[in-house]
């Protein structure tokens, strides 16, 4: 029969030799192998104390952005929800009223904005779809929780701190 790839290895069907049938020699060889592992370097990362750095393109937990004046950028256009392959995003739009210009950048805003982190596959398509630079994937991941409700992130969880009124919090969130 012709081999399909060049990586075929024929099964060794030779009857075991006398030395092999004694077991002892081969067990000794195996024990030497395991013994050599005592001196090997352990690849373990001691997690809570040591953390592996994320790559700069890591796609983690979402944040909702604000502009320089601290106004929410999202205009509740729904493009992210449409783009989302996992249907993780829902929102409710509302119209900005007189006197809310410092809160919302556009005339329409998201009154409710929720991402279900259990559905999300962290593909980043929402980030790409957004015309307003409002949603970004950060470099952290969703922490564990005791119930499902805790994985549905609303606006308070997602919005970044206001760069004007909460500058210190923002610096902290950015990790510097």
């Amino acid at each position: 029969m012709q081999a399909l790839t060049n990586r075929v290895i024929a099964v060794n069907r030779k009857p075991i030799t006398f030395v092999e049938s004694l077991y002892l020699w081969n067990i000794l060889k195996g024990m030497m192998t395991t013994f050599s592992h005592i001196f090997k370097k352990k690849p373990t990362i001691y997690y809570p104390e040591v953390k592996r750095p994320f790559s700069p393109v890591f796609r983690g937990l979402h944040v909702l952005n604000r502009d320089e004046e601290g106004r929410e950028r999202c205009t509740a256009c729904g493009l992210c929800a449409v783009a989302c392959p996992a249907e993780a995003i829902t929102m409710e739009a509302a119209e900005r009223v007189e006197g809310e210009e410092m809160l919302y950048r556009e005339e329409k805003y998201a009154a409710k904005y929720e991402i279900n982190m259990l559905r999300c596959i962290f593909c980043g398509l929402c980030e790409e779809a957004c015309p307003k630079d409002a949603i970004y994937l950060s470099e952290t991941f969703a922490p564990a929780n005791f119930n499902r409700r805790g994985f549905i992130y609303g606006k308070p969880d997602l919005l970044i701190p206001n760069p004007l009124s909460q500058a210190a919090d923002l610096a902290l969130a950015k990790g510097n």
Partner: protein
Amino acid sequence: MTLLSIDTALVIEKLILIAVIIFASLGIALYTTFAERKVAAILQDRPGPNRAGPFGLLQPFADGLKLIAKEEIIPSGANKWLFILGPGLAMTAALMTCAVIPWGDKVELFGRTIALQVADINIGFLYIFGVVSLGVYGVMIGGWASNNKFSLLAALRGASQAISYELAMGLSMIALLMMTGTLQLGEIVKQQTGPGHHWNVIYQPLGFLIFLVCAFAECNRTPFDLPEAENELNFGYHQEYSSMKLGFYLFSEYINMFISSAVMATLFFGGYDLPFFNPANHTPNFAATIGIITLMAKVVMFIFFFMWVRWTVPRFRYDQLMNLGWKSMIPLALVNMLVTAVVILMRH
């Protein structure tokens, strides 16, 4: 009434010795569980348990606490008394063997000479044999009383394995017995100590090998841990057990390992004898301390060996186990016995 006069001091002395030995055995077994996990981890390039206490040293206590805190379940179909008796028997049998092992030479305390051995009975060999065979009843009763077919199968396996390997073990011991001419463990150690005397392993390498393999089988250690073969029998004979009763079973395995290491060290590696160290040149207490430390070092080495093998060799298949036992071990032990007999005859 001199026949019934009891030396009270002797009784107290022995009771203290028994308590010390039992607690030491339990403590060592406790830390053997920890060592097992550490050795496994190190052989597999992992750090192993390192969270409870410094270097994870409190891990065995955490494990014990967890086992105690678990719910105690007795299956409704189980035979209640036998179900409770099983783990107790396994534990008792495991601990009983330490009575005849000479842990060291004599010490002198409060003007008394105390032998560091609970009972230097003249049938020490046979006693160990008897108690080791009792140990299998723990497995048998536990497996039978659980009213679970997996447990029962595992118990049957355990029993047949123990019987097969006890034969070879006994034969290898007979060869040793012919050489030493005594069944008394204290005497056997004395024959191996002192200048001009050699450890029995030099005269009986094959006997030692057979004894070692059989000890693995008797302790239900990998590669012969068929009574607890997870992949075919779920959890083996202690499947239905929970809480501390399960703990007793697991624990007795480690005590067994400790005791058989001590027995092997005593029979073949000179017990508390340290080569090139003459106890006659030192005070008895110092010599005894050195002796105990030596014996413990040998035991630790054996325990490490047990673990090393466990994390290297995969489990035997049941028919392979029986083949090895009946077709290799027993004939080998017989040959060993014959050769020993011929050599002894020729030297006379």
